[in-house]
């Protein structure tokens, strides 16, 4: 795979379903009520349940490794967190190669939903 700075990844739209929010929270062993119980989430000032951070990391990693291929070894996932991913929204992930250093490739990534940027940062993989 030949990679150059400026290469764009195909955007991926991820529908944020209630099932996805709950299933990924439990798969990451995160039982905080704000990720599965709408009533308690609202009681805590949120408008609904929302995606947990482990999942934001996991989906960011998935977005880049799906592009880089199964042999890629993930070295770093660095994200800044912003607008929550609420059920009913769609997060569109975009990415662009921002650094190539030997077999190490840094991809700048961004996940945007209707409220704004959910997560943005970089993923570094060794190809």
């Amino acid at each position, binding site marked *: 795979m030949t990679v150059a700075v400026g290469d764009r990844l195909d955007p991926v739209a991820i529908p944020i379903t209630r099932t996805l929010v709950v299933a990924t929270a439990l798969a990451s062993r995160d039982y905080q009520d704000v990720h599965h119980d709408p009533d308690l989430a609202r009681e805590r000032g949120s408008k609904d349940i929302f995606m947990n951070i*482990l999942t934001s990391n996991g*989906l960011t990693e998935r977005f880049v490794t799906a592009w880089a291929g199964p042999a890629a070894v993930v070295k770093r996932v660095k994200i800044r967190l912003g607008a929550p991913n609420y059920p009913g929204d769609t997060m569109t992930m975009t990415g662009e190669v921002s650094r190539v250093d030997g077999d190490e490739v840094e991809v700048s990534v961004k996940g945007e939903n209707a409220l704004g940027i959910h997560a943005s940062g970089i993923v570094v993989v060794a190809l």
Partner: protein
Amino acid sequence: MSNYDERLDAFVGRQLIEAKFGQDAVNQAMIRHWVEAMEDPNPAYLSDDAARATGRPGVVAPASMLQAWTMRGYAATQALARGESAPGASGFAELVGLLDEGGYTSVVATDSDFEFHREVVPGDRISVDEVVESISAEKTTGLGTGRFVTTVRTYRDAEGETVGVQTWRTLRFRPAAPEAPKALRPRPALNRDNAFWFEAAREKRLVVQRCADCSTLRHPPGPGCPECGSFDWDTVEASGAGTLYSYVVAHHPKHPAFDAPYLIALVELAEGTRLITNLTGVTAEDLEIGMPLALEWLEADDGLTLPVFAPTGPDTDHPRPTEN
């Protein structure tokens, strides 16, 4: 540096959570659960053959799943929700307590920076400990005033070798105060002698008490006539015209129901009595003793309507009194 800052600073470098191994070793079942939920099609997570085709000895766990291996799980989360303390996390509880003391009661995660030193594989035992890297000075953010707390979580294998490091930043903040309900003006102290005046004002009638015997007008309201001593009285309705007899501009104390500075006027009514009131539609520098004034009505809130005065004359298109 304040004493509070020093106490916060003392946490820098301190272990918040002692190293603790996850309940289960890295295993295929939990990996499957994760990759199915994440809809991650990478075959290197589930198939040894596919993993070998990528040059690995067998399946590997998704990198960012590292945190999941050390999550406390359902039972311990429920125990925490019941108020039980988490073993090995007294430092964390102390820091949260100190932040609460500073009013920083809300928390939101802002950054996660995960560096992976090696891929983890089924059979790995993963531990994590958490150390404070920095606590910022107080910052003003969109969410409220708070402090960024940066910690470093170090993930190690059974041999104590570091497999990953996560720098984790949360904002501990004082939630911005919700819009305070509008303050009300102080209530007048009503009694049997003055209630009639405020009741008339509620109907937007400015009345003046009149002695029923000698017809002398008087204000403020009182039980007896200062001229003849009679207790009999009635009222007349004022025309609403007046002049500025005296005034004072009060800057302090501030009261949330009023717009400072307050223009407090002694208005001489055309009928001859004087009334302490507020001026509206004019600023202090434009006030002149003797200037003509006209009555306006201030509907301060549902329970209070009061007479106020504004300058008359050619430039009388001053703003009408508002809720204040």
